[in-house]
């Protein structure tokens, strides 16, 4: 600091407390609303203090969901979300790491061509080519399956690009030293490159897990069987699925539980996550 002015600092704190309040407010509201009895939301303004029905509401949500509207219990949706998020994350990382390895550490015919094929996927988010992609998955018989939920989202130009960026920063001499030491490509990959990439892979893991967990449109389209509903899309079904006003207390309990896993991941791995985002995504 060049200088420290008490007044300026006070102003900064005021602005930041306002900012934090703005950021926290929606989740606060959700936490407050979730333990209220259903009657609370029929009249007047929503409460700003928690209600008494925490245990009951969460148990209902966890075990029954909103069965009248056709949504399965949260426990099932959470499991589905976890399976989908992990499958997407691990799949993305695995195929991105090996393809980045091929692109950086080998020279072969059509290398640039393959790079661009992979790269094109970055330019085509699922939302913009949604109808034909759905048709392909339907033709392959992958609707209502974990494979259908995850495999089409596994190809990742972003992850490949980020891993490639990292590999480019690994000193040339390490690979040369390994070669002089008698290591072939896969041995070098396993003994040297992967152990060196652990931090970066972990950071990517956080980012990709959140991406996978928060998928919305894709599961919405390809799951018609509630057995395969994920929690993020399930919330939408709870909000719009009934014929009456949403059952806010159950919706909010679901919101809390849907947001909790990725938020926890970020809070516990904040340093790694911030590093992964800012250092690789350049």
């Amino acid at each position, binding site marked *: 600091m060049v200088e420290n002015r008490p007044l300026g600092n006070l102003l900064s704190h005021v602005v930041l407390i306002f900012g934090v309040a703005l950021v926290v407010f929606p989740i606060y509201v959700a936490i407050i609303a979730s333990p209220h009895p259903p009657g609370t939301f029929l009249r007047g303004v929503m409460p700003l203090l928690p209600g008494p029905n925490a245990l009951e509401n969460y148990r209902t949500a966890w075990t029954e969901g909103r069965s009248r509207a056709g949504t399965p219990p949260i426990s099932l949706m959470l499991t589905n979300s976890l399976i989908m998020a992990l499958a997407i994350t691990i799949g993305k990382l695995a195929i991105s790491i090996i393809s980045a390895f091929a692109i950086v550490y080998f020279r072969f015919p059509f290398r640039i061509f393959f790079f661009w094929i992979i790269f094109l996927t970055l330019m085509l988010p699922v939302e913009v080519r949604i109808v034909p992609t759905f048709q392909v998955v339907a033709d392959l018989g992958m609707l209502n399956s974990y494979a259908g939920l995850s495999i089409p989202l596994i190809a990742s130009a972003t992850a490949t690009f980020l891993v490639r960026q990292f590999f480019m920063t690994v000193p040339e*001499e390490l690979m040369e*030293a390994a*070669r*002089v030491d008698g*290591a072939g490509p896969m041995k070098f990959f396993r003994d*040297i490159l992967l152990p*060196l990439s652990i931090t970066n892979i972990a950071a990517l893991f956080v980012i990709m897990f959140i991406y996978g967990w928060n998928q919305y449109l894709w599961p919405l389209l390809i799951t018609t069987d509630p057995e395969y509903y994920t929690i993020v899309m399930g919330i939408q079904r709870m909000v719009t699925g009934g014929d009456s006003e949403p059952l806010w207390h159950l919706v909010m309990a679901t919101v809390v539980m849907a947001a909790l896993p990725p938020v926890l991941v970020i809070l516990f791995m904040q340093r790694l996550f911030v590093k992964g985002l800012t250092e690789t995504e350049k």
Partner: protein
Amino acid sequence: MAAIVMDNLHKVYAGGVRAVSDIMLDIADGEFVVLVGPSGCGKSTLLRMVAGLETITEGRLTIGDRVVNALEPAERDIAMVFQNYALYPHMSVFNNLAYGLRNRGVLKPEIERRVREAAAMLEIGAFLDRKPRQLSGGQRQRVAMGRALVREPAVFLFDEPLSNLDAKLRVQMRVEIKQLQRRLGTTSLYVTHDQLEAMTMADRLVVLNGGRIEQVGTPMDVYSRPATTFVAGFIGSPAMNMLPASLLRANGNADALSGLPGNADLVGLRPEDIGLDAVAPGGVRLQARLDLLEPAGAETHLHVRLIDGKTRMTVRLSHVPGLTEGADLVLHAPAAALHPFEAESGHRLL
């Protein structure tokens, strides 16, 4: 133990850039040869061609009794010390040393024995469990040496191994590497851009410029009889003074130059061969003005300008007899100290 024979080696990169041309060089078994030259002269490329890290575009490379052009680095029986050491950051010092042996299927007790032995030789035995980042620069350098040593290869390759050390450590390691090499008697090829390092360490020097060999010889040979103006300027510090022969003749030195070949239009003079002895007989005599005195401890460098007001020279003296800047001097050099060159070709003439 192996000799290296480079038979007309060439390296042309995919883009058409010629990095190395016409390299003919025989390195005897057990010899310590230093490749020296300015950056971009091809010395590292040549070393990496020997290592097998760069493909050889043309020519034949023999190590021992095998032509190795098509062999992988690991199959060439070489070990290499890299400029930035290239230690595996996630492995302990022990594992760094052992990695190459394990890849070759050397048995555990033998690995243990060789690593301990190398570590003792380099005095890094106390650090075997540490990671490279916990070591100082000098210790890392020793680990890099150790990794080459444990392999007991036929040839050591060094790629500017001391350039990341501070000046004091560099001098110390220079001596140690040289002694180690003498003791083991392993053929060594050593790349550096530091001409002092090259002079002090080499059995034989190879001076490279623009991808070609300028001169090969023992350090004293190269120093006292530089084959080209490039070598004359590159080896020796301060650099050799280069004067047009016409300038010397015009200043009354025609007699001293009469012994030189007629086409010698450029004359070199080492700074230490020049004195202030105004009464010495024969030789070359020049009038000059002292621009700057540079005391360097044991010796002093005099930066002077000849009476034409343009030509600058450097003189190296061990005793400076009470000179002040701006003083007029008479410089003298014996005729035997003159190095005659032909300016156009850059070749030495005598």
